[in-house]
């Protein structure tokens, strides 16, 4: 399953860091951060509940870039 979330992040490198953090989160198959359109596209692994996974993704992203925001 693929879902797109609106995000807010200020610098391009931070966006890269967020992307890496999201990819490493459990339950995420792959993730892409589009800095230009301020979007996060997450593909979830089979049988994962997006809501719980996204909480983890948000926590992981906050860790690498405290200033970022994901609108769930």
């Amino acid at each position, binding site marked *: 399953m693929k879902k797109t979330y609106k995000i807010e992040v200020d610098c*391009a490198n931070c966006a890269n860091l967020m992307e890496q953090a999201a990819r490493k989160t459990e339950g995420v198959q792959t993730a892409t951060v589009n800095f230009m*359109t301020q979007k996060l596209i997450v593909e979830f692994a089979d049988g994962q509940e997006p809501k719980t996974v996204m909480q983890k993704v948000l926590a992981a992203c906050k860790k690498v870039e405290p200033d970022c925001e994901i609108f769930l």
Partner: protein
Amino acid sequence: MQALIVNTLLAVVILTAAYLWLVVGRREGSMTQKQKSMLRRIFVSAAMLLVLQLLPARVFAGLDGILFPGAGRLVRFVLYLADYYIIGHDILKKALKGIRNRRVFDENFLMALATVGAMALAIYENGDYLEAIAVMLFYQVGEWFQSYAVGKSRRSISDLMDIRPDYANVEQEGTLMQVDPEEVEVGTIIVVQPGEKVPIDGVIVEGTSSLNTSALTGESLPRQAREGDEIISGCINMTGLLKVRTTKDFGQSTASKILDLVENASSRKSKSEDFISRFARIYTPAVCCSALALAVLPPLVRVAGLGLSPQWSTWLYRALTFLVISCPCALVISIPLSFFAGIGGASQAGILVKGSNYLEALAQTKIVVFDKTGTLTQGVFEVSAIHHNQMEAEKLLEYAALAESASSHPISKSLHRACGKELDRTRVQDVEEISGNGVVATVDGVQVAAGNDKLMKRLGIAYKDCHHTGTIIHMAVDGAYAGHIVISDIVKPQSKAAIAGLRAAGVEKTVMLTGDAQKVARQVAADLGIDQACSELLPADKVDKVEELLSQKPGKGKLVFVGDGINDAPVLSRADIGIAMGAMGSDAAIEAADVVLMDDDPMKIAKAIKISRKCLGIVYQNIVLALGVKLVCLVLGAFGLGNMYLAIFADVGVMILAVLNAIRCLFVSKL
């Protein structure tokens, strides 16, 4: 001298910030709240810094006499510290958070470390606080500029693609109501007034007008539309009032789909983007480690090896300079921005590129393979001659049209047109289509075979060849040869120039694939200057042919397939890059292709390649510029020839230049 430069720069920052804050900031939606508050901080801190700089030293020295010895030094320190706090408190906070999350080596940490280090050196020497604050200030200016420029270019790119309709007019109880286009159901009658955008795809039920499609196709010539015509969203109604029955939801309409496609295109990342984000991951830690080494090793060597004084503070300063240069942001920001701008510029020219990766790959195009029909030719067939007919020409045409009436192939349509009357399908029975050969059917109880020479051979009927070029349909009625019909397709007027344009753009080989007879294919290829023509191909053969060409192509070159997107989806997806043309309103083509040309002008292929070249050129310029300047500054810093101002220029200045350079990707209309 240096003080003069810094003071001038500060004055420039103050004036610019004041202008942006008071003039631009007032405009609705021009800045986010975050940007506005940052701007105020930059203004206040720059002004305070300039005042502190211009105060003569004896003001503070005088304090010593009035209060207590050392008071001047303390007051001076507190004032500078306050200024430092105003401009840098968020960076310090983020750096602390980063450390708590065990993430050192991010830019906040580096900036904090470098400026706190510089402050500490300044306290120790009661010297130059200016440097730490100025570095922080210029860093913040850079960050602000980056966020402003990116936001602004994002908006201007969306404005370029100004096809998003804001409302739809629906007639309710005799009055026109403006409603959200998302709420309009399929089948509703909407009213489009002159000057308005068509909000939703539909069919015109009343009125005639001319439509401006330039936002969709880049074509400036208006298109005529009248009752019964299909109309697509995103066009601008220019002259008359139109009533339109919608055939799609807003979300499924052309305008929404195109916007969606363009906006998401930059999510498919290019190789250069991947390379840079991998590079950024090594670059920052590497520079930090070198900074540490620079701070520790030379003093130790001086003490232990050379017996000189260690000069700790000099080397520490050089190491801090290193840290300022270590942020990879200029590199990282400029590349996606270039592609984003390139995709935006291309879409304005009627070329939709579905990903940064495709925009990047287009530059390496070496082989272009065309599907003939509808790509190089107009795909509108016309019956141009009837030869050797054993019966009246009209009768023969009618038989042919009836036999082919079940097919939706352009040829059967042109037969129908030439026949010029309504066809009664009940007269046709037992239709058998033989792929790549033709049709055998029973018409009015008589067996009719219509097809190419292969069909005649298959049926064992002697046929007469034709000296005309075109598609030849041999007819056999009741088992006897009844003559042939010549149908020719018209080559598009721009095709020849388009092939020449491709060659000029560096394409090494052009190939044409067609299901037509060899003679026709050769003739068209020779006329247009195409290198290779492969004829008499069945749809499945086209995939094989493309596979064969793929295996022959030189290493890094890319193979582009251009089709009309109607029945060549497998080939479009097999090629490195699939281009569908004339796609306005064709969902299938937009789905299958990697690059979509909104109108059917083959010149756009060369243009797409040129846009890609330009964009990639700018990306390389940015990479070389950013890395080059940073390397030079690193070397200068290590030998003590550069100071922190140089370092901050290497960081912020280069980023600003790279962003401005990236914006050039937008301007593609002259290519």
